[in-house]
């Protein structure tokens, strides 16, 4: 099963290496990792997407906890949460198809952020499945380059749980 783990870590040099090293060494797979500031100065939030059964996830969480630079580990899959990813994709697009592509992009609430003579850059955010769907539609035009941030996520407020 796919799990999203949110890890609060000290904003220290090498902390990403420590986490990635641990996951690799213990043979846990990583679908994506994203790191950035957190609400508290001095701490970063890492969001790790991984796959595994219950036993493996328990190990992931316990082993992460053993790292001195790890403050808190939370499996967001156990709670209602919001998970989002940012996608930038450069699509082959001569003048004749630009309108068509804009039409595809619109229902995804994505936007065109750059236009060149033979390509357009589309920016989209959302859940992974939504971005996958958008990519499938853009693929026939030819994808020149793309970059995805990996998932970042937060748990929902308790009052809104289940909404």
């Amino acid at each position, binding site marked *: 099963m796919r799990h999203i783990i949110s890890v609060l870590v000290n904003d220290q040099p090498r902390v990403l290496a420590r986490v990635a*090293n641990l996951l690799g060494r213990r043979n846990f797979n990583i679908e994506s990792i994203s790191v950035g500031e957190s609400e508290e100065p001095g701490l970063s939030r890492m969001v790790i997407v991984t796959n595994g059964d219950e036993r493996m996830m328990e190990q992931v969480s*316990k082993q992460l*906890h*053993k790292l001195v630079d790890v403050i808190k580990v939370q499996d967001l899959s156990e709670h209602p949460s919001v998970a989002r990813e940012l996608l930038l994709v450069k699509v082959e697009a001569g003048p004749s198809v630009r309108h068509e592509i804009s039409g595809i992009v619109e229902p995804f609430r994505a936007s065109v952020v750059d236009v060149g003579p033979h390509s357009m850059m589309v920016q989209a955010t959302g859940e992974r499945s939504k971005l996958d769907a958008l990519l499938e539609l853009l693929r026939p035009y030819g994808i020149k380059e793309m970059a995805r941030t990996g998932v970042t996520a937060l748990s929902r407020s308790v009052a809104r749980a289940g909404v």
Partner: protein
Amino acid sequence: MPDTATMEKMAERLAEAKGEKKEFSGSEILLLSLLKEGVECVFGYPGGAVLPIYDSLYSGSLRHVLARHEQGAIHAADGYARATGRAGVVIATSGPGATNLVTGIANAQMDSIPLVCITGNVAQSLIGTDAFQEADIMGITMPITKHSYFVSDVNDIPRVVKEAFHIATTGRPGPVLIDIPKDVSNAKAPFHYPETVSIRGYQPHCDPHPIQVQRLHQAVREAKKPVILAGGGVVTAGAEEELIAFAEQARIPVTTTLMGLGGFSGEHPLWLGMPGMHGTYAANHALLECDLLIGIGARFDDRVTMGRLDKFATGAKIVHIDIDPAEIGKNVDTFIPIVGDVRKVLQAANRGVPCSQSEEWLQQTAEWKKRYPLKFQDSEESVKPQWVIRHLYETTHGKAIVTTDVGQHQMWVAQYFQFAKPRSFISSGGLGAMGFGFPSALGAQLARPDETVICVTGDGGFQMTNQELAVAALMNIPVKTVIINNRCLGMVRQWQEVFYQERYSEVDLTASPDYVKLAEAYGVKGFRAKTKEEVVQVWKEAMSHPGPVVLDIWVTPEENVYPMVAPGSGLDEMIMGDEKQ
């Protein structure tokens, strides 16, 4: 063992530090911090990047043992730590000095041994430029340290040292690395040592949950066939008395893992011996047939379970007591997990522990012990290695600290030397690092000068670190080294015999040095023995000699370690070794 002169010098220094706003160099601050931590002895090897540290050591305020290889230094520090329970300290220079520590660090990590490893590094202006003797030791050792520090500011040294010792010695102990670039050991700062330590991400659990202890009591009360699997955690926690009280009150037999040897006396009637690959019949069959298995500070590794969890304690409820929550559920499913310091858990458990219903079971395990004891075919013409170990045990009455290398002799020591006290068996368990035995014996002897320290080693392992004979000679460290010399790499040979159709590939060590002459070349007494009479004689001489001794004992090379469970087999498929006869 801080002599008064050392203490006085230390006091002088600290007084100076407290006085006017005197500034110290980073290396002086490091030494003052070590003294503040009560460090009496460090092991190490100098080099370019630690020149400032060694210059500070020149004042003589801290005892330094100059090894002949950094691996020797760190294994000695490890032996010191295992013999005392306190952190061992090792210093090495950047680059090759630091990388030579790697085996020793991995060894300490696998066996949860508290070490503080201090490495120098090139100046920060050169870091990342592939400078001379630069190695990213922090990156290299990240998977094999409990934690590590790169000190970029001289003002951080006292806090880092304080935290390093705290992390190394508390919770589940382990090695901590402190990497100090040369410009930081040269930089100046005032010295303020922190009184307390507070690390937000490091709060080891110590006290057990009372409800879990109640559940343990309930399980003990219901058990008809209980067994305790005691591991290194019992030794680390100093819980030997609590364990004896628990086992006696609840009437439960005990098997001790390799790391747990001495944690429960090998002379106690409830002891079943060591379990696992070379374990006793009684221990392995108790694990197979028990209805309650209480793992205490043991991690259910593959040398105990053989990785065949489908055959391991299948009818048992498993209780797992460990200070490291990550060990619980890692290898076996646990019915009652109890996270906490083993000693505290047993203290809590001993209050009101019921008696199990084990009377018939105890008869059964005693019957197994009687019917299937450890045995070997003794010989009058040649020297059997097992006989040598038994002779060491009998002549010392078990009152010795024994260190080993890795392989057959290690297993024979584990089998035939019935360790009665914790911290008396010192061996590389998890990593299985050859070369550990001799330097760790030096460290153990320095830590406990009044004890008899015996290093039982093999002709393979001894050659990996025998350069430390220089240290033994120079400091007159009276370690008795017993080389179980079978002229080959015995354990590898055994596997080649049993699993590779006697295709003995690269295990012949006949072209080895004359160990008596080798010892003498270093100024150490050496003896050779090829018959039982000679063994008895030279061992007597060794024990009466006040200094270090090397005994080269020629044993039969074709001897194998039995019982044995083949890899991939379950504990029920023991090869007892007498099937051929």
